[in-house]
């Protein structure tokens, strides 16, 4: 008896030792290995810092581009990755009025891939001028209209150059300047704005402002296959091989020097993105079997897989609040005159719809609390100004059909209403659409679903000719974590920044002068948080849109992945900082 217990004690101690030893080993990540990423899409939606405007393209661009400032990545949670750190800029000076930034660039950093010359300040200037190339415009132009003096004028002039002619575009870039963007010498970059913006550096942290060598980039059409194959990389990896629809092979550059890159450790020797898997199920099977290490374009792993990993208490399941949200928007365009759209202009009808919906059900279809949390306000948990707020609470977020019916009757629709509702035909949106349809029916709201293939989504939703009442395919992900409230409250909903018709994502067409006033106040403020909180409560109560859920990002990794690091821009693994077990 004594013998036995001693024995088991010994075994227990040994087991404990090995258990603690394993994370210790993992804590000192090793260089080497090939990181395999299985992509759900058959190609990258964009692979040019100019056009990349999805978290997935940013996750990959992280390896081949560098910016002036960036985020380090965080092992714990996405919301912990909000501190800006120097990247290619070593330091910067800000003028008294806060409108002019002078960046001092790091010396001795070289490109890799199609060229290996040193990165100069003029490359940033070229990169920014390229934003208005008539062949392909930068994806987030509104930010830069605001950020750089003279940018809009430059773009207006550039748009007169005929597309399809590379030489004409290059000549224009060489002959014209943006007054707010200049490089006095090779290692100094001066950026000027017309107004003070508290989030100026955040805007620069996005992948758009990336240095590009003009002698290479001007030879190709932006984001063309040739450009992708000859990608001039400023990051730790270069493009070794790119075959459309098959794979992208990135290799660590010979010139990579950890001393010159304080952010990206570049543990893996090689990163291969495989485009040949195009269903969710096979992707997670691949990761489970170790054929792949990470996924790309996989919004959320299949529920069964999440449950399995949770059940096994697997260390390979990584979950974090992401600040991304799904919501229902209304067709508030003046052209929209269908009975449904007209009815929705009455706040009582919007309230009725809010009450009709069970957010708990939507959370359930997304995979439970691990995958999503109910959201009752417009801004989300990772961004500035967030204070929990629920203007229309219901028990357990189950909704309240009776209240919804009453509100409808009050608004003059005692027999219920019918709404035409497009949604994107992906698993995630289909789940939301089908749930909303069933739940709304409880309150006498009939929803006609209109399935739209994902690639046609924006064309459909932004076409003034499309007839619809509510959009079940609307979603939001913060461009950067932290002070990115500008994008939602200062951008999408602000009728000064995004007047109905132009640049209006999801055709929201919301106008609230009080919100516009609060946003203007916040931009110049040194403490914008409370102002945004106020603005959030204003529009959340007014139901500018109906928030549904805040998604939690769930990423699966293979057994081989260690040193787990979230990238807040990519909202998934930081591929330049995760390592592979030897």
């Amino acid at each position: 008896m004594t013998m036995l217990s001693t024995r088991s004690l010994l075994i227990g101690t040994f087991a404990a030792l090995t258990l603690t030893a394993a994370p210790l080993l993992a804590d000192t990540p090793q260089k080497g290995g090939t990181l395999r990423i299985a992509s759900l899409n058959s190609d990258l939606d964009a692979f040019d810092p100019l056009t990349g405007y999805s978290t997935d393209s940013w996750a990959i661009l992280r390896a081949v581009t560098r910016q002036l400032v960036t985020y380090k990545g965080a092992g714990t949670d996405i919301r912990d990755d909000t501190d800006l750190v120097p990247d290619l800029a070593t330091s910067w000076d800000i003028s008294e009025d806060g409108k002019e930034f002078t960046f001092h660039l790091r010396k001795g950093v070289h490109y890799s891939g199609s060229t290996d010359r040193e990165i100069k300040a003029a490359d940033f200037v070229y990169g920014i001028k390229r934003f208005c190339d008539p062949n392909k415009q930068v994806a987030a132009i509104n930010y830069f209209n605001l950020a750089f003096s003279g940018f809009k004028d430059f773009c207006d002039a550039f748009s007169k150059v005929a597309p399809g002619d590379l030489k004409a575009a290059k000549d224009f870039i060489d002959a014209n300047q943006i007054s707010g963007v200049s490089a006095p010498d090779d290692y100094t970059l001066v950026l000027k704005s017309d107004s003070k913006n508290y989030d100026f550096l955040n805007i620069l942290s996005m992948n758009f402002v990336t240095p590009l060598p003009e002698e290479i980039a001007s030879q190709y059409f932006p984001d063309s296959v040739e450009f992708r194959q000859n990608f001039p990389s400023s990051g730790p990896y270069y493009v070794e091989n790119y075959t459309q629809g098959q794979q992208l092979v990135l290799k660590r550059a010979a010139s990579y020097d950890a001393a010159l890159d304080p952010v990206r450790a570049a543990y893996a020797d090689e990163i291969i993105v495989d485009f040949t898997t195009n269903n969710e199920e096979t992707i997670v099977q691949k990761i489970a079997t170790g054929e792949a290490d990470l996924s790309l374009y996989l919004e959320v792993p299949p529920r069964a897989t999440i449950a399995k990993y949770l059940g096994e208490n697997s260390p390979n399941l990584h979950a974090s609040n992401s600040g991304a949200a799904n919501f229902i928007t209304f067709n508030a365009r003046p052209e929209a005159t269908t009975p449904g759209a007209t009815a929705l202009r009455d706040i009582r009808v919007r309230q009725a719809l809010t009450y009709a919906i069970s957010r708990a059900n939507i959370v359930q279809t997304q995979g439970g609390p691990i995958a999503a949390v109910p959201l009752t306000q417009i801004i989300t948990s990772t961004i500035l100004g967030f204070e929990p707020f629920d203007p229309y609470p219901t028990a357990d977020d189950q909704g309240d059909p009776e209240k919804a019916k009453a509100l409808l009757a009050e608004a003059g629709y005692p027999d219920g209403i019918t709404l035409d509702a497009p949604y994107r035909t992906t698993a995630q949106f289909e789940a939301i659409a089908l749930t909303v349809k069933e739940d709304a029916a409880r309150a006498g709201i009939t929803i006609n679903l209109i399935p739209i293939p994902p690639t046609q989504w924006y064309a459909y939703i932004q076409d003034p000719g499309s007839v619809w009442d509510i959009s079940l395919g609307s979603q939001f992900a913060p461009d950067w974590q932290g002070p990115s409230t500008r994008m939602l409250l200062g951008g999408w909903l602000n009728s000064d920044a995004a007047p109905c018709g132009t640049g209006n994502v999801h055709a929201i067409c919301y106008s609230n002068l009080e919100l516009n006033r609060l946003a203007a106040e916040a931009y110049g403020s040194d403490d914008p948080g409370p102002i945004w909180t106020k603005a959030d409560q204003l529009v959340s109560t007014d139901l500018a849109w109906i928030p549904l859920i805040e998604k939690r990002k769930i990423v699966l990794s293979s057994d081989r992945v260690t040193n787990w690091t979230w990238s807040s821009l990519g909202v998934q693994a930081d591929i330049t900082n995760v390592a592979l077990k030897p």
Partner: protein
Amino acid sequence: MSDTLSLPGRRARIDALSFGLILSGLVVAAALAAPLVAWVTGHGPTDQFRTTGLDQMGLPMRPNAEFLLGSDGFGRDVLVRVLYGTRISLIVGLPATTLAMLVGTLIGLVAGWSRGWGDQLFGRFMDVMIAFPFILTALSLATINRGADGQPRIPPEALVVLVIAGFSWIYFARLVRGITRSLRDGPLVNAARVSGASVPQILWREVLPVILPKIAVFWSVQLPANIVAEATLSFLGVGINPPTPSLGNMIADAQRSGLYQVQPWLLLGPGLALFLAVAGANILSAGLRSRLDPHSALRV
């Protein structure tokens, strides 16, 4: 002497026919019983049972007393949905095949009877039709069918019927055209011609009776193919749209969600139904062929 050399296994033939009939009968009965089962269980095909059909994680239930084949990712009854999906398979497959048969026979008769440039024209037309890609056209038509208000101009089921018929009439037409051609100068038609019969009379009285058993057999060959075509279109997302259950979109859903690993009946249910529907029709067609058209090779 060749007639003495082929000794048909008469017993096996009858078995195939009745086996096919039983199997197909079961499938039809299942489809017809769908509303009954829905009524008995109290589960409509699109009703979501959030509390009893799903667990906290949103995972479906395995077969139990309430859900005989378990539930799906929305807490819907798989059994009821499989029955309704089978119904859709038949609602699409039967009229599509019949429509294709009618159109194909008509065109095949005219094409087979005509000579010279008319014959040439039909030949080229059929070449183009055969070369036309099925799924792409289905996709394009699905897009066209989306009216200005986003709602389909004609019901999606009707569109799928038209698309499938539009691609399968051609095989009927080829068959009928071939037979008509071979009969056109044969003694049967010549005999009718010298006895003063008009062309419609000849086609109706002499040609059609020869063709009928063959197209009846071919109808039963084409039916399972068309059931599969509907499932494939729905699988690829260009056929029957959710939440209406179709065997194809249920299989797609099972695969995409991976939930079939937790609840195998998500895949097995619609898979088995599709299997039985197709197998039943195939065996029925084999039986019919040996009954109605014993001398021709199996031409699909």
